[in-house]
């Protein structure tokens, strides 16, 4: 993992001091509400329905166990003893006191964490693949580049007052687990014919009110030009992005209005001016970043599949966990494990202080003292020996995060919704729980296979409902909460956006509607087809027919 040097500590220390002074001025009445607003947002602080919410960045999802324990400490000392893992890999505290936030940020800075630009109209935290560095299908580890981007984007003097928020995601694998096609900038790390490392650059993707799949504006950007090219894109956006209407201010609207080709030409023209300047990455800079993510001290191990098969025979429940929550690793004898934060009855992505500490203990013992947050709102231990899996399973089960549901219908993505968020039109958490209760039979869930259910409490789409195989969107109709269902969305390499099934439903109808959608899939699927494949083959009609059939 990247380790701060004295420069990083100094800059972050200056930031926390700056925010402490700003908060003091605000509390003393010397800083107006509307002037404090963007300052607190750029330090992660929202004012929510019930209390402030503090969003702390987890750069590209990587956490060490010191950080996990510090998050647990902050949750216990300053909050109500739990935190929420967001759909952009960040950690959210739901109940901090405004006056205490500077102290929280000071504590977090001690362990190299920050809330810098985690909200507001600025460059946000850069996200990446939760299996970066360990996935068998990885071409290039995206983390060194993500860290280079983190540094470039932090306190960037030119882009602190953008038209709207700006999110970058980086993937270095064949299979896209970072949703790069629905980010303001998506970067795919690739190698060219001569083995040179570079980036395929996508811009203008996004969810929210106007979901758009990003356009490729450059097939290959040599790695040394990463920063100057990002500067060029941001500069064009900063100058030309709309500022008259916040719903039309994201870069996706600009790219659509100009056309991707014209936008690309504009970027290239700007880039030509700054291309070979001092922002050009040197070999030494790239190596420094790469060294921060060097390979851990893996043992030389053989494949332990036979032992795992035997353990499965003795304990079928272990086998279920293996099949859903354990993922292949590029190093022989190792595996990656997803700890599920989606047991029935707990808000998806919520985790308590003692669970955070338990994960830290497990990571210390089994996974080189590191863990990763995922955009599906779970936590991954990346480097577990296959021979330790059985023991790890037992311990994870005892702490409540071994629910073997990863990738299934109940491993849903869900925003905090109307229970917490002041933007929401409708509650999302009770819908999630009702669906989890409707589909609580594990064997049935496994039979249904991979199924992404994404739930958002409003059209801002924090729950990524557009790219769920099934998406649920909370809407407000004359003061009442309704839920619109979408089908056919998909995240990943063949990203697609869902289409609306039909008129929205009341909260109490949603589990039954879900059941009818699933029944339709089961009736229509042909051997081995996953939900999204069946949907793509048969289309919307049979689902619509079944769901809206008049009960006779």
């Amino acid at each position, binding site marked *: 993992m990247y380790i701060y*040097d004295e*420069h990083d500590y100094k*800059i972050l220390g200056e930031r926390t001091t*700056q925010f402490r002074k700003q908060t003091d001025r605000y509390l003393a009445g010397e800083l107006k509400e509307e002037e404090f607003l963007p300052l607190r947002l750029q330090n992660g602080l929202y004012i929510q329905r019930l209390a402030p919410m503090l969003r702390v960045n987890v750069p590209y999802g990587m956490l060490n166990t010191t950080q996990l324990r510090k998050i647990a400490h902050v949750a216990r000392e300053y909050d109500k003893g739990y935190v929420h893992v967001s759909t952009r890999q960040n950690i959210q505290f739901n109940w901090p006191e405004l006056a205490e936030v500077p102290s929280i940020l000071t504590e977090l800075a001690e362990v190299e964490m920050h809330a810098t630009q985690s909200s507001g109209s600025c460059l946000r935290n850069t996200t990446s693949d939760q299996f970066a560095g360990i996935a068998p299908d990885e071409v290039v580890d995206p983390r060194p580049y993500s860290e280079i981007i983190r540094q*470039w984007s932090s*306190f960037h003097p*030119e882009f602190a*007052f953008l038209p709207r928020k700006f999110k970058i995601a980086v993937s270095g694998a064949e299979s896209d687990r970072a949703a790069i096609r629905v980010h303001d900038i998506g970067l795919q790390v690739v190698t060219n014919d001569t083995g040179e490392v570079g980036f395929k650059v996508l811009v203008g993707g996004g969810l929210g009110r106007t979901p758009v799949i990003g356009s490729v504006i450059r097939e290959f950007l040599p790695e040394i030009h990463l920063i100057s090219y990002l500067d060029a894109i941001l500069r064009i956006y*900063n100058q030309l992005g709309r500022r008259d209407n916040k719903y039309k201010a994201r870069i996706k609207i600009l790219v659509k209005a100009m056309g991707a080709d014209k936008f690309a030409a504009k970027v290239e023209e700007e880039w030509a001016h700054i291309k070979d300047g001092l922002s050009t990455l*040197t070999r030494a800079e790239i190596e420094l970043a790469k060294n921060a993510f060097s390979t851990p001290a893996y043992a030389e191990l053989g494949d332990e599949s036979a032992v795992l098969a035997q353990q499965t025979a003795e304990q079928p429940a272990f086998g279920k966990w293996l099949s859903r929550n354990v993922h292949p690793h590029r190093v022989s004898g190792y595996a990656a494990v997803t700890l599920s934060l989606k047991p029935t009855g707990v808000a998806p992505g919520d985790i308590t202080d003692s669970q955070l500490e338990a994960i830290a203990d497990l990571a210390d013992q089994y996974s080189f003292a590191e863990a990763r947050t995922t955009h599906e709102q779970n936590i991954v231990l990346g480097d577990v020996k296959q021979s330790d899996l059985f023991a790890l399973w037992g311990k994870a089960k005892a702490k409540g995060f071994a629910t073997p549901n990863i990738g299934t219908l109940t491993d849903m993505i869900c925003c905090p919704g109307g229970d917490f968020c002041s933007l929401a039109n409708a509650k999302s958490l009770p819908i999630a729980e009702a669906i989890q209760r409707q589909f609580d039979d594990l064997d049935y869930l496994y039979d249904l296979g991979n199924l992404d259910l994404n739930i958002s409490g409003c059209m801002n789409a924090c729950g990524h409902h557009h790219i769920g195989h099934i998406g649920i969107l909370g809407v407000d109709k004359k003061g009442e909460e309704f839920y619109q269902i979408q089908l056919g969305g998909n995240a990943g390499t063949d990203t697609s956006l869902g289409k609306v099934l039909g008129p929205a439903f009341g909260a109490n109808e949603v589990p039954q509607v879900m059941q009818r959608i699933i029944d339709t899939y089961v009736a229509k699927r042909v051997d081995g087809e996953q939900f999204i494949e069946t949907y793509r083959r048969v289309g919307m009609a049979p689902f619509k027919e079944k769901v809206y059939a008049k009960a006779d």
Partner: protein
Amino acid sequence: MPKLIKDANIIDNQWSMLEASNTPEDALIPAGNVIVPLNVWRSQKTKLSGRADEIGVWLTSDEFADELADDAKKLPLIALHFATFMDGRAFTTARLLRERFGFTGELRASGAIIRDQLCYLSRCGVNAFHFADDSINLEGALDSLSDFSDGYQTSVEQKTPLSQRR
């Protein structure tokens, strides 16, 4: 006399600002140091060039650096006027004036800026700050100017990124 911050000092404002005009060719330009709108500069450039040391130009947020382009080098002062502090376009304009168009005179941010923007503006090449709000405590604002002693990126103040100075 109204005060402002220039080069990290509090000084008297020696310049008056001529309001925007729909008939720039007819705008009367008073004697002394005057900052004129871009359209006035354009329509009276020949005449105004004779007063080289006492004519500056101010830009709105949607007037970009390339609209002044090579004229920038000849001007003693350019002001970037903020209608609202949330409009960050002038941050780019500042950098381009300094880094692309060779402007070396006084680069002034004026209008609805807040003191918490001073440090970033300064890194973008702005060296003078004129708050619309007269009640601003300028000594306090001077503090904010040095909120950060260093930054990761290239900037007008520090051309070498931090990662090449580690």
